[in-house]
């Protein structure tokens, strides 16, 4: 059977500590204002609850971004990972509009240290290069998976809130988690492969928040 990678995020364990956010930043060296891996804070006074949600590209089985791209720059790998081909992308932003989850960014023309590029930016690895004007999003750390490692966010999580694995493998630990997990915006029928174990009564507020504002929105 083919490999089909996914992640289950257990929101009963996610604390909003931002470690995955920084692990992703450090691994992929995304430019300023671009956070492929986000943590949303969902506060519901009526339910007296605050919930934190690790949030990134869903690597959909049927990704709307692929169909939307006029350059055919977006493709799904055999293992289900959705990739934007940086050579083909012309940054028209159609994928951004098509994505129900709002997780695609257009790279800004900005550097953290414009006067002195840090040497770690110069390793020549393509996954760490983000030309301005092109679309970018979480790659599920395909470059790490290809070396037998798990995505940087999963490795980093101090609460072990994330389980990464092959959704088609009946004995993978991810399968034990999946029975309790839900897909976000399931009605969109994109077939997201990032699943969530969601505390009671929170599915709806969570989806509403994502539709309204999928960014981290920490400050205006």
């Amino acid at each position, binding site marked *: 059977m083919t490999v089909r990678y996914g992640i289950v995020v257990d929101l009963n364990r996610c*604390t*909003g*500590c931002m*470690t995955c956010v920084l692990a992703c*930043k*450090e691994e992929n060296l995304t430019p300023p204002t671009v956070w492929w891996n986000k943590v949303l804070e969902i506060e519901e006074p009526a339910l007296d609850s*605050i919930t934190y949600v690790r949030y990134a590209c869903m690597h959909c089985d049927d990704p709307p971004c692929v169909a939307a791209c006029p350059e055919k720059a977006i493709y799904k790998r055999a293992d289900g990972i959705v990739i934007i081909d940086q050579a083909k992308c012309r940054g028209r932003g159609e994928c951004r509009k098509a994505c129900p989850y709002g997780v695609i960014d257009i790279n800004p023309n900005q550097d953290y240290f414009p006067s*002195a590029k840090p040497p*770690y930016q110069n390793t020549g690895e393509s996954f760490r290069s983000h030309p301005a004007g092109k679309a970018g999003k979480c790659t599920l750390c395909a470059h790490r998976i290809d070396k037998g490692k798990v995505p940087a966010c999963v*490795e980093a999580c101090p609460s072990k809130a994330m389980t990464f694995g092959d959704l088609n493998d009946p004995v993978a630990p991810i399968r034990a988690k999946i029975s309790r997990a839900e897909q976000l915006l399931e009605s969109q029928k994109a077939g997201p492969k990032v699943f969530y174990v969601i505390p009671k009564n929170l599915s709806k507020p969570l989806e509403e928040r994502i539709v309204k504002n999928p960014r981290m929105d920490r400050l205006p």
Partner: protein
Amino acid sequence: MNFKDASEEQGSSIRKEEDALGLEEETAGYTFCDGCNEVPFCGIKFYRRGEVVTRIEPWPDYPASPLCSKAYATLQRLYHPDRLKYPMKRTTPKGSPDPAFERISWDEAYDIIVHHLKRIKERYGPHAVFFYVGDPKEPRAAVQRLAFTYGSRNYGNESSTACRRAAQLAELLTYGFPTTGDLPTEQTKVMLIWGTNPAYSGQPFMCHWQFADAKERGVKFIVVDPRKTPTATTLADIHLQPRPGTTAALAAGMMHVIFKEELHNKAFCEKWIHGLDELKAYVKGFPPNRVEGITWVPAKKVIDAARLYACNAPGGLKTGAQGTTHDLNATNNHRAILLLPAICGYIDIPGGVTKPTSPLEGMPGFWAEGPPSFCMRDKLAAMEAERLDLEAFPAWAEKLFEVQTNHIVEWIGEGKVKAFLGWGFNMMIWPQTHEYQQAFAGLDFAMAVDYFYRPRTHDFVDLVLPAAMNFERLAPFAYHGRMIFGRTPVKPAGECREDWKIALDIGVRLGHPEIFFNGDVEASCNEILGMWGLTYDDLRKNQEKGITVPAPCPDAFKKYETGRMRPDGKPGFDTPSGKIEALSMVLQKHGYPALPEYKEPMPTSDEYPLILLTGARVPYITHSKWREDSPWLLELQREPLLMINPRDAEPRGIGRWDIVILKTPHGEIKVKAKPTIMVPKGVVGVMHGWAKANVNELIPRQFDPISGFPPFKEVPCAVMKA
């Protein structure tokens, strides 16, 4: 100022490194994170090409792992173009608006330091020089060796200012051994987590997954915190949200229920608690209804929590470094918490609150304190009369060797302190920061070692020295239990030196080359490692797995029965009575309330109706660090936010991100508001350590009489729309 020159030169050195990058093989390296000043350190595995660090990961199978956001940001910090790269001296008198720092050589810097140290010793005596280590804690051992060899008794640090030591004092007075509790084990049935948020702030390291696993195993959790922290939301079966500063009343209320319903461990209490009758009589005055009135915690919840904790033996405890000691009743508030597991008999049993059986030989205390022999702490006994905190804080002085620093304003004013040698120190740690800044301007000489130029501190010193960062340091190595690990540093940037080496170098130039290993950092580490028959080379040979020094015996429990709690080998606890002291004989001797008495916090009023809670952690910033250091982290938060309950925000017309004025009788700041149920009604929270809105200017210089700790979580305040 010479900053421009420095960054230009650094730019060119980086370009050279870039050219070399492609040619070098990628190899693994190892170091520790100093991002939050936690010791023992969390382990970083990094990849390097030559002397360039290219990426980092958690150190596999390292005992303090995984990492947190700050650890990942140490990579960006390492190559920040604004890093201090050269020693600098100010060229205008302290107190001038522009310090006009200029670059000097290390030789000149050391000459200046040694000149002042010799002059001050001759004229005022050695104790007029205050030695201080802030953040990171790493150079503490080397700086103590320097201070005590030079001959000053006056060494202190951030722990002895406002962090760990007040709780530790409470632990030593009560249990006779220091502990912030234990992680739940397979035996633990119920956990009491009080005033700490391990999901964000370690204690120890990023351990939240272990609590989450315990919860999935069925362990019950009682979380005590005024705030709705992720620790509370992800773990708590019962979340108690007391009014800040009322800890002793809440603990007394729980003990009231436990004694009244006879849920306590009678045999343990009779045999091992000193002052049991006095304690029982005291908590009798705290029935749940009264406790509700004092603490805001509903009486039913007090009863439920007491029953849940006492009826599910064994129960564990997790307290924080300082969350429960930032008020004017700090020590006795924390002592009250410690008595809960004690009366249930949960002390030194599997799954309860334990004392390590076999600490490394020669390391009786925490690693952060340093090995006593290397630190030359044997010199202290003869100098005790010279410690500056002796009169104001006698119980502290009896139990803790580090000097309580909060009165340094007075000591400088009275001419008792003439010079200050500080590693990683920050003025904003102190309440009424400006008083400390003004006082420092009056010193003969002040020196700071740091990574970046931090104006709110360095504008008030004479000399700023550039420290090598975590990837560039050899010392200190790390240990966890009986496991020891070394590092594999890259070459420091510019002229940066390890802060440990700076201490050694000063010692050499004071005329003690042998005592300070001719400035050789590795030789000084070997002096410590020699206690276990090891050298740094042995650590290199066992780089990733480390070296475990075999324990002389298996872990043992109930060591109070076998004489292994006390240095004299007699059964009992290491306290004057030999028991856990509900009634502290040390406090009694010095005229303090000897029971963990409740003291009513500062009263709110119509003018100041809210309670200001400062010092709570965000996960990606520690204190005032990371402002200059990493744009990655700064992008997550660029300014402090005032957390205010929506029910307090609405009547004041305060919406999300509105600018508000936060005011106490002692000062005011302007900040952005974030209405959130994270804080309960009646309490507002704001982060500390932001220079443009330094909340410590709103805190008075009043101190807990026992520990000298400031009231960072007690002061009445007002909030209004700006």
